């Protein structure tokens, strides 16, 4: 009897904890989604130059993985599709939007732009696969300093065809580095389907190099966070490098309007969107309020930035 009661209490506690995590992740994901949609709007308004690669539909991998880290010491390396990673890392909405708008208030003074962000231990670059060796170097340095820091480097399934990544796998495994290779498999390399890009499997590739590897439903933010937490903890305790494959789907275009996919295909993924899925597990009113708060926050930032460059609605 006592055991049963304890079990019920545990389940209840776990449930409460999951709800609290889901709320936190929902807040972050809706903020990321709002910022990304705002950036696309700003582009249409002619207020952004260059390009943006939004992570619509992939918010769970950013929130789930990055919240498994110790943000004070761990290191995040990101790629061209890195706004979600950046916001999950530091929630710096103004620094990001200003950066993409090319304003001096941007986190890199407007010089870096969308693909080249750096703040504290966050570094992104737009060369696919290129941050793998850099991240491996970060992990080498942190291991030699005994800092206990874990480095995470994000790649999409498209970048997984770049050779630099496999040289990095080899080094990471040889030197047993504290590094996590997070593979966001959104099924598209720009316009090319994964079937035309990737032979074999990601897990098979990891196994070949002796990396610990796991694959998770990348649109289930709790599952992502659970898997990442366990892997990061293993890495931190010296169990060597790992790969986490996050199965997801890019809901938006590669960059701006460049989407030739069948709209029906995209639509078929609508219910699987991580934000939609999280919402079904939470109170709808709370979700609506949270979404409104995110919109208000982002709008306020945008209005301030527009004013600072002498333009308002």
């Amino acid at each position, binding site marked *: 009897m006592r055991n049963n009661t304890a079990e019920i209490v545990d389940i209840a506690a776990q449930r409460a904890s999951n709800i609290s995590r889901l709320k936190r992740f929902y807040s972050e994901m809706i903020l990321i989604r709002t910022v990304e949609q705002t950036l696309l709007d700003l582009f249409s308004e002619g207020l952004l130059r260059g390009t943006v690669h939004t992570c619509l539909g992939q918010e769970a991998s950013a929130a789930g993985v990055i919240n498994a880290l110790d943000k004070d010491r761990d290191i995040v390396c990101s790629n061209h599709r890195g706004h979600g990673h950046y916001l999950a890392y530091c929630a710096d909405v103004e620094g990001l939007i200003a950066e993409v708008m090319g304003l001096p208030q941007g986190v*890199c003074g407007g010089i870096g732009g969308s693909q080249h962000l*750096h703040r504290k231990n966050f570094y992104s670059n737009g060369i696919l696969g290129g941050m793998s060796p850099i991240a491996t170097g970060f992990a080498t340095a942190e291991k030699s300093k005994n800092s206990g820091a874990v480095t995470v480097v994000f790649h999409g399934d498209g970048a997984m065809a770049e050779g630099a990544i496999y040289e990095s796998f080899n080094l990471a495994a040889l030197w047993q580095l504290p590094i996590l290779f997070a593979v966001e498999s959104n099924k598209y390399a720009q316009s090319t389907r994964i079937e035309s890009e990737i032979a074999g499997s990601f897990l098979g590739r990891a196994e070949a190099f002796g990396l610990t590897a796991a694959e998770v439903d990348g649109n289930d933010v709790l599952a992502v966070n659970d898997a990442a937490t366990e892997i990061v903890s293993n890495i931190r305790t010296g169990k060597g490098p790992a790969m986490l494959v996050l199965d997801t789907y890019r809901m938006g275009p590669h960059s701006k309007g460049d989407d030739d996919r069948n709209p029906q295909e995209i639509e078929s993924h609508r219910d699987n969107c991580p934000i939609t899925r999280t919402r079904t597990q939470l109170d709808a009113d709370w979700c609506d309020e949270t979404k409104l708060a995110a919109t208000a926050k982002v709008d306020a930032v945008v209005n301030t930035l527009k004013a600072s460059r002498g333009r308002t609605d």
Partner: protein
Amino acid sequence: MTTYLASLQTSLHNAFEADARVVLLGEDVLDPYGGAFKVSKGLSTDFPNRVMTTPISEGAITGVAAGMAMRGMKPVVEIMFGDFLTLCADQIVNHIAKFRGMFNDQVRVPCVIRTPMGGGRGYGATHSQSLEKMFLGTPEIRIVAPSHAHDPGEMLAKAVLQAEEPILFLENKLLYPMSLAESEGAINVEYWDKESGYPTAIVRNHSLTAADVTVVSYGGMSRVILPLLEELAEEEISVTAAFPGSLQPLPIDSLIMAASESGRVVIAEEGTEAFGWGSEVSALLGEHLYGKLEAPIVRLAAKSRVIPAAEAGEEDALVQATNIEDAIMGLLV
């Protein structure tokens, strides 16, 4: 007399002793092998945890060095042959040379990429080139190339211990066994741009204020130019040779001064001629000395074709002392 190789070896040892953040990574760098050209010989015995032998992954280890540099270390990465820098190009051009600027001056990437360039050893088309022109012109990396009229170890110490910038440090295969040049007999060596840490070596075969001809060159070309200067001294042809230790940024004021000693300029380099270092030096000297030169600038460089493995073919492809002598004589007709 210290050799070019010993100077580099000693310098690395001293740098390892001076600063615990210095590490070296590269292929086959552990003792007893000590690197393909032996520059890291002895290092892993004295500092076993700070010399990392790597797989044959030039691109990745260059990025690893950059990552280590951004996290507070002072890495030196050895690329076995300069030809292999093509494999490192993405990390050098799109990562190492970009981070400081594109992250708005918030990071530094103080890594040193050491590699030997040059031919003359019969290694053939892919192990004999001087490929620095592929990186010259890429902003925000310094490219350094000691001749044997320099103290290469001193330049390496500066690069490893003091520099905040990424540095491509070009050694030369045929210079390794050579004794460092000193002022002796007709040859007089002095250094300009010392404050930069990468001085311009000014080598004269005369003690006059004006010379017949100025030779502007760098790196391994000193091997053929210094003996030529000795020969020409006997014929009372006065030559001032300038070897900038830094190819980029270029100490152009010093080169203008050296060129002004004669008004007749020969530019000699081991790489191929078109779109190269010599093209840039020639253009800059032409712009700054418009109307002041006695003759058009003469450029000498490797022929625009692959470097043959066969000895005669290789000699023909690369600039030899006789080519430089002919150019000098041509300017004095």
